């Protein structure tokens, strides 16, 4: 730009034309003059400095650009797979009880449900809930093969048949979690449906479960071949071990709440497990709604100036999403539970509305504590779950209950009631949550 002198009046239109706006500072003006007008570096810096001395002194208001929302198109398919699996597994109770006896199956389910939830929460925390986690998990394929065997061995040594069955169920369900996360629902659904059919035609139930466990493990290992996994946009990195342990404890707590209520008999045919279906389906819908939460939180921060006298983030979008998720979960649980109650062939065996309400409240508690945990409120979550377990244990000790499922209702309601206000507080100060918790690993 040898033809333009250093006079700001001459330089300004050139810079503004290139940028389409005022320059931010002298350096920006200088790079424009050098890069697009061919001015030497020294002259460009001088011209930039002179230009800025005459620049208007008004601050431009900035609004952050929001990241493009990520869609989860697989949610519906994975949800459907999950429901099919829950219903199919519900039909395992009768043949297992028939082959192994009520006590064995009851003990096995009590252990398996708690252990499975603990492992699922731990796996999600350490690997499955973050980008690149599957690839990191794939690096532990040998452990994935050995761990199920070790679990079954430990179960058999500790609890005999009950332990073996508990371990096999745990292996199957945890393997299924990996397959669903890997976007391989079909193998898992096929294995479970085939096992259900095999039990229905009278094959030994424990052998069938053993086969299902082995097949699910092999499928999970096959699904985790590293070269078939998408290279992550971020590195495959595991979370802290203590964080994983905390998640496992929360999962175990939720599992305990599920099995502590003595009025729910998991061995009375398919019905008790079927009673889980309404809350499970509703929880999926609620969780799907929560996918909108992070964009809503960020939307509440964009455009709120840090210099404002009351620069509080707008919490309404995020709270709206939370309310929507809770509302969906409760409404769908109620609707599906009513449908279940009104189904004539199930009759009284669903053990009344109390159990269904209890499962619904437990699903709500699980949704809320999961969310609060992901937003950095792990300690509060642990306390809420511990209190929920404690309340349910008290009800169990009390013995004389007004209706079936009262322990579930009390435990679930306690945990949900403790988690909900904490969540509201976290979402109301979302800037801090995003800055210090979500974005600082």
């Amino acid at each position: 730009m040898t033809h333009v002198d250093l006079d700001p009046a001459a330089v300004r239109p050139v810079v503004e034309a290139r940028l389409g706006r005022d320059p931010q500072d002298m350096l920006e003006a200088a790079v424009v003059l050098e890069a697009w007008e061919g001015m030497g570096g020294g002259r460009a810096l001088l011209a930039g400095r002179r230009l800025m001395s005459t620049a208007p002194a008004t601050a431009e208001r900035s609004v952050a650009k929001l990241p493009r929302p990520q869609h989860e198109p697989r949610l519906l398919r994975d949800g459907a797979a999950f429901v099919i699996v829950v219903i199919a597994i519900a039909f395992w109770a009768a043949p297992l009880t028939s082959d192994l006896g009520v006590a064995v199956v009851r003990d096995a389910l009590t252990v398996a449900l708690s252990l499975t939830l603990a492992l699922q929460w731990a796996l999600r925390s350490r690997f499955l809930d973050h980008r690149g986690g599957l690839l990191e998990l794939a690096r532990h394929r040998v452990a994935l093969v050995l761990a199920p065997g070790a679990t079954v061995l430990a179960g058999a040594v500790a609890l005999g048949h009950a332990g073996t069955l508990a371990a096999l169920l745990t292996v199957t369900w945890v393997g299924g979690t990996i397959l669903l996360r890997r976007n391989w629902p079909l193998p898992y659904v096929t294995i479970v449906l085939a096992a259900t059919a095999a039990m229905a035609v009278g094959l030994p139930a424990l052998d069938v479960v053993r086969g299902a466990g082995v097949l699910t493990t092999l499928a999970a290992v096959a699904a985790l071949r590293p070269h078939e996994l998408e290279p992550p946009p971020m590195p495959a990195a595991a979370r802290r071990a203590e964080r994983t342990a905390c998640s496992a404890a929360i999962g175990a707590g939720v599992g305990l709440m599920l099995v502590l209520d003595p009025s729910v008999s998991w061995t009375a045919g398919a019905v008790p497990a079927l009673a889980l279906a309404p809350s499970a389906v509703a929880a999926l819908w609620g969780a799907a709604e929560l996918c909108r939460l992070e964009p809503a939180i960020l939307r509440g921060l964009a455009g709120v100036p840090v210099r404002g006298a009351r620069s509080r983030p707008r919490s309404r979008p995020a709270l709206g999403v939370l309310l929507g998720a809770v509302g969906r979960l409760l409404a769908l649980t109620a609707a599906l539970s009513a449908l279940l109650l009104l189904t004539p062939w199930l009759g009284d065996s669903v053990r009344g509305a109390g159990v269904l309400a209890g499962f619904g409240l437990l699903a709500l508690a699980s949704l809320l504590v999961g969310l609060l945990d992901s937003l950095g409120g792990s300690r509060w979550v642990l306390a809420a779950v511990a209190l929920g377990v404690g309340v349910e244990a008290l009800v169990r000790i009390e013995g004389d209950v007004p209706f079936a499922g009262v322990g579930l209702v009390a435990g679930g309601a306690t945990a949900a009631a403790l988690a909900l206000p904490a969540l509201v507080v976290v979402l109301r100060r979302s800037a801090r949550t995003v800055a210090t918790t979500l974005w600082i690993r």
Partner: protein
Amino acid sequence: MSGPAPASEPRADRPRVLLTTEGTYPYVMGGVSSWCHQLIGRLTDIDWLVLPIVASDKRRRLFTLPPHARELARAEVWSEAPPPRRRPRLGARRGSDALPATLVRHLIGWRGDPDAVIDAWTACRCDPAIVRTAFRSTRGWELFLDVLRAVLDERVPEGGVPPELDLLEAARLYQTLYWVARTAAVPTPGCDVVHATGAGWASIPAVVHRALHGTPMALTEHGVYVREAYLAAARSDASPGDRFSATRLARGLTRVAYQSADIVAPVTEANAHWELGLGLDPDKIVVIPNGLHVPDEPTPPPQTKTVVSVGRLDPLKDALAMLRVAAETLRRIPDARFVHYGPVQEGQEIYGRSCRRLHQELGLGDRFKFMGPTDDPRRAVRAADVVLMTSISEGMPMAVLEAMGEGRPVVATGVGGVPDVVRGCGVVRPPGDDHGLAMAVVMLLRNPELAWRLGRRGHRRLRRLFDEAACTERYRRLLLGLAGREPDRKRTVELEMTA
């Protein structure tokens, strides 16, 4: 970060140089990586320790280090990996909450104090656990916001008026400063000289090492870090707040690097103007131009009316201008051919697509081919009658040196050190002068004898001024001088340059 650096004992007989890189060697192909590889490969009397700072998805090493060089555990930024778990020292927690505020005040503020940044980084290195503790704390965030407000209230004429950042942009800046602090906490092994290959993130561990151990620090600037950051921001569609954060951070990092470095070695005098303009002490500047191995005699051009360009597809290379130049050239010489070698720069996929779109709109078809990356740029330019470069920012581009080494005339934009290099061996036009560039290409394609004459002149000029051996020898003397193995180090280099 991907783990602590392996400890090793310093050797008395050979100097050890810690080379820090940012997003380049040995994980990314490009001019700076080639330069690093060439320098390390030729300076065999030095033990090299390479500390790469890379984005988290760069996992495949593209260069094999020679036996006298060793890669340290690389530092990853923006990874999901948590920092090594340690508890802060007793009492360290109390003061550490101010770390984010200190960094925003002195790195982002126009009048920030580089020494305060160095002190803060040194504290991070001495007690890495304070970094996460400070940035996770509520008080850390609140102090950060208070200071950020003060920074936004700064009114310095040359600094302009900062935009009104919103809370989301503030949170993004907070996260970026967290990664700066984590990079400062990266362990570095004992060495005789630290050599940063850029004034940005690569300089952070070097600055900390120097502050802790008093080890001399050299800084090579291929481009000018701050200039390239501003150019990238000016061309991006980022919000004013994010643009402000990115550019001010680049300026802050550069000021700290200039403050710490004992020697700053730009590859061209044109960069030195910028460095002086950014407040660098002129006594620290030693210009060391890039060098290239030059073949004895160049082969004549193929006379196929082929124009070759080599470089990443990104806004700094202004590939859109290249396409326009090609279109104008082809209107006059329809049987000419343009061939471009180079990948789409990561993060510039949209720009890459816009290049394809313009290629289509201009109807260039097979007459302009994007060949993708090449591992043999010299062979690529050998197949040219003319080599074209349309960058809007350069230091001393290897592509131009390679063209001259092969005896090909260069048509280029006059940015950075290009006019000094190409003088008399091609045509230099101001950036943005697409018509002028096209006319130069047309002239050379229509006059192959002139093109060949300019090419041979370029070859001779390269041998005389930009020889690889001379370049590496200058670095050898500089580094050995800094390591205390040769006295009066700076004078030696300066005298050579003058000669």
